């Protein structure tokens, strides 16, 4: 959907909602193509096209939303009427903020034609290259190639119009050895399909699988851990909920100050930690506005270990007399989801982080992470697809997977070293980290 088509559709909807005090239209137009494979065979693959229109109607201080993917006049009118009806039936919203008028949004070029045109034949060929990358033989491979071209638009009855289009491609693959004792994994994502080398993903997954065969039992206890960038990407974004300003102000966050207020300005982790969101960063290329059309700018959450910002909705920002950071374009799932997230790093490779480790565990990535204790941002989860013992700066042998109970926030206070930041997925840049006393708690028999 082009900018003009999105604007025309938004105008049609706004024209149907003249009776409302305020109307917002959110449009998501999506094409997706995916190819899934296991045992060197494509299992399920598909293509989807869909356009969803969400209408948020305000009547006085009442507000409600309705959405549809049926775009004929009758359905759009029904949806507008339903939103208005739901709004009228709702009680006044004391936190209601008026819809935004025209805004200036950064132009972010995140749409790559080659990615948007990745047809089933090209995808099948890419899968074939990934499988061949394992080196053939008896390695069992399973994986997923997922490609999207998405256009999002926001328009309001007060004259706001925002439009952004983006592509992303993600390829991940798991390789398992025929004896079932080794498993490896590799994954990469980018806005640009051209940045992805399927054969290399296959090679990396197979190498991990072979190296992780016959994992050994070690004591389940805290070890120094070298977390590869993908493992860091599993943990650091978990800070999103804790970064919610309102929760912090209300005394129910790890960033709440004892006695009231937030910990903004306090040192919350190691001074080598800087974490930010910036849609315009060429490494991230995120959506430059949120679900209300508010421009999303560079926001530094943690700078050199000091908490600089929390995520403020428009209402909470007004109440606290600060600038809003905005909410997520994908409706608040995580403040980082659409706008991108980068943990800056140093200059070292993962191998150099390993070389600096006397005794520890190397982690490929994590699995099944769940919150345990919001007061300390404590989570539990397990290592997966390759955990290795490091002795005197060298990876010496594979070890069984380990469960851990650890906090990304507390962990960043036990930082020994930081690698260089690299792309781990579309809109995500993370470095490898070496963490002292990473709290492993039990062994898993899973391979």
């Amino acid at each position, binding site marked *: 959907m082009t900018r003009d088509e999105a604007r025309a559709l938004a105008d049609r909807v706004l024209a149907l909602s003249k009776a409302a005090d305020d109307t917002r239209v959110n449009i998501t137009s999506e094409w997706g193509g995916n190819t899934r494979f296991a045992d060197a065979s494509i299992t399920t693959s*598909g293509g989807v096209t*869909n356009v969803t229109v969400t209408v948020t109607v305000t009547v006085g201080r009442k507000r409600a939303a309705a959405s549809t993917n049926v775009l004929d006049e009758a359905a759009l009118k029904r949806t507008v009427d339903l939103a208005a009806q739901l709004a009228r039936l709702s*009680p006044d919203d004391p936190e209601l903020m008026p819809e935004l008028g025209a805004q200036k949004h950064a132009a972010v070029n995140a749409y790559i034609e080659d990615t948007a045109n990745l047809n089933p034949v090209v995808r099948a060929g890419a899968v074939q290259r990934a499988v061949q990358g394992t080196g053939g033989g008896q390695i069992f491979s*399973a994986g997923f190639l997922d490609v999207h071209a998405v256009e999002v638009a926001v328009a309001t009855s007060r004259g706001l119009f925002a439009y952004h289009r983006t592509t992303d491609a993600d390829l991940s693959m798991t390789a398992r050895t025929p004896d079932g004792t080794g498993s490896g994994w590799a994954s990469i994502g980018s806005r640009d399909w051209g940045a992805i080398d399927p054969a290399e993903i296959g090679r990396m997954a197979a190498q991990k699988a072979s190296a992780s065969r016959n994992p050994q039992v070690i004591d389940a206890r805290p070890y120094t851990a070298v977390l590869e960038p993908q493992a860091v990407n599993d943990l650091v974004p978990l800070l999103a909920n804790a970064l919610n300003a309102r929760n912090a102000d209300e005394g129910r966050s790890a960033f709440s100050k004892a006695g009231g207020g937030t910990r903004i300005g306090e040192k919350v982790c190691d001074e080598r930690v800087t974490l930010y969101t910036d849609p315009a960063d060429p490494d991230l290329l995120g959506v430059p506005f949120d679900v209300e059309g508010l421009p999303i700018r560079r926001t530094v959450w943690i700078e050199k270990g000091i908490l600089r910002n929390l995520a403020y909705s428009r209402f909470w920002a007004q109440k606290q007399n600060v600038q809003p950071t905005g909410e997520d374009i994908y409706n608040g799932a995580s403040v980082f989801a659409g706008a991108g997230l980068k943990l800056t790093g140093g200059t070292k490779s993962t191998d150099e982080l390993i070389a600096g480790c006397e005794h520890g565990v190397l982690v490929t990535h994590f699995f099944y992470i769940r919150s345990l204790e919001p007061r300390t941002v404590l989570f539990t989860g397990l290592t997966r697809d390759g955990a290795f013992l490091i002795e005197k700066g060298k990876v010496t042998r594979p070890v069984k997977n380990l469960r851990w109970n650890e906090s990304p926030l507390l962990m960043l206070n036990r930082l020994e070293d930081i690698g260089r930041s690299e792309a781990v997925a579309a809109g995500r840049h993370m470095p490898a980290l070496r963490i002292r006393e990473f709290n492993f708690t039990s062994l898993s028999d899973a391979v």
Partner: protein
Amino acid sequence: MSNPTRRHFLGTTAAAAAALVSTRLAGRAAAQTLAAPSADPLAIELANEALNVVRGAGATYADARVGRYRRQTIQTRERQVSGVSDEESYGLGVRALVNGCWGFAATSTMTRAGAQKAAQEAVAIARAARAVQRHPVELAPTASVTGTWMTPVKRDPLEVPLEEKIALLIKANEAALRVKSVRFVSSGFQLLREVKTLVTSEGTNVTQTFIRVGPYFSATATAPGDFQTYEHETAPRGQGWEYVESLDIPGNAERWASIAAERLTAKSVEAGQYDLILDPTNLWLTIHESIGHPTELDRAIGQEANYAGTSFVAPPDKTIGKLRYGPEFMNVQADRTQESSLSRVAWDDEGVPADQWLIIEKGVFKDYQTTREQAKWIESLTGVRRSHGCSFAESWNAVQFQRMPNISLLPGERDITLDDIVAATDRGIVIKNRGSWSIDNQRYNFQFSGQVYYEVRNGKIVGMLRDVAYQSNTPVFWNAMDMIGGKSSYWLGGSFNDGKGEPSQVSSVSHGCPPCRFRNVTILNTGRKS
């Protein structure tokens, strides 16, 4: 294994136990349920249009699914509504089997041209897959069926006036805020109506209407430097508004909120080994994770290896009829016919009639969850030729694949209760409701917590605990089960959003069970500060 000195409880057969449960629930779901709507003529027309295209292109099998989904969400916090939304999604998904390979395409353009284009794309995707395919797909036979079905409900939740729904939630929140130290409350509903028409190239033509309700309630109590949240286990169900009313959320909210306040002063648990008494409000999720997922056949043969993981219940020839999962009295039943459950259907997304079968019989693993494609893989081991009817897609725009049916631990023959189990326990912990849950990619090592924990000493509950999580290994854990509740303590929990597959799809599934006791389980303290 079970303790020889414990009381003896004989296992029940699946059929007997199911009959007991069904009778009990059937009593509530009396007559006056809404009639099942028939298919939208446009849905049939477009489905047939798509099937004509794929047949003409050489597909040996195809199905077309038209879905119209409505989801209403209401969220409140304290004395205000924080969100009301109503979503409609309508479209067509076409699946084609060409040269033994699957292709799937979906469109929201509901015209003949849109249906033709999606059908052509499905064929193109299937043809492209041929280059990367080791074995052609074969489908287990199923008879063609026609008909309509609807979740038995008296009141469609989407037709209940919004004011009534909001008033109920605000009244509940007001009641919760009466508890001293409770400063935050959130409550809400997810209400769904899904109309799904499936037409296959083999002559099946069915239309089903599913109604599901998902209420939630949580309260947070605060103290200087501390906060504790209690979420009540308001199980989502495949039922109508009458189920929401039966929960009496406003009448219970103050009592539920007081649990959050009580947690502030509860004793932090001392880590160690305890006898664990799991209430059904907690155990249902443990069943889901440690029995439901490992017995999915696609996981066992590696098709989920890159995402949800594989399974320790593998390979099929070494586990079917051989793997001891738990004690003799352990019987676990899969059931897509169970009343009030979330995954109840009349036919699955391949037109296979709903089935009921044993996953575990007398403690031994018996059979997997299957679709038509998968049934062939283990037919020689199980003697079962049919699919168990586990095909499901979350929406018209997603391809159907194997999803979990309702899977439940059948009650023991003696009708003992949670109180009886507590009375028989010297040193233990009772856990209620779901808290945190995590399990490894082959379903061995798990760690779960709850919302409320009680310390048991010498057969009595002596106080509330906090900072509790239990960690175990699936086969060890189930073989440590030595007491099981009876039919009157059976309760049906469930999840609205179980994730699986790539791209990830959610499904809704219920799990019933009685309270059970597990000997010598590792308890962790999660209250660390650095």
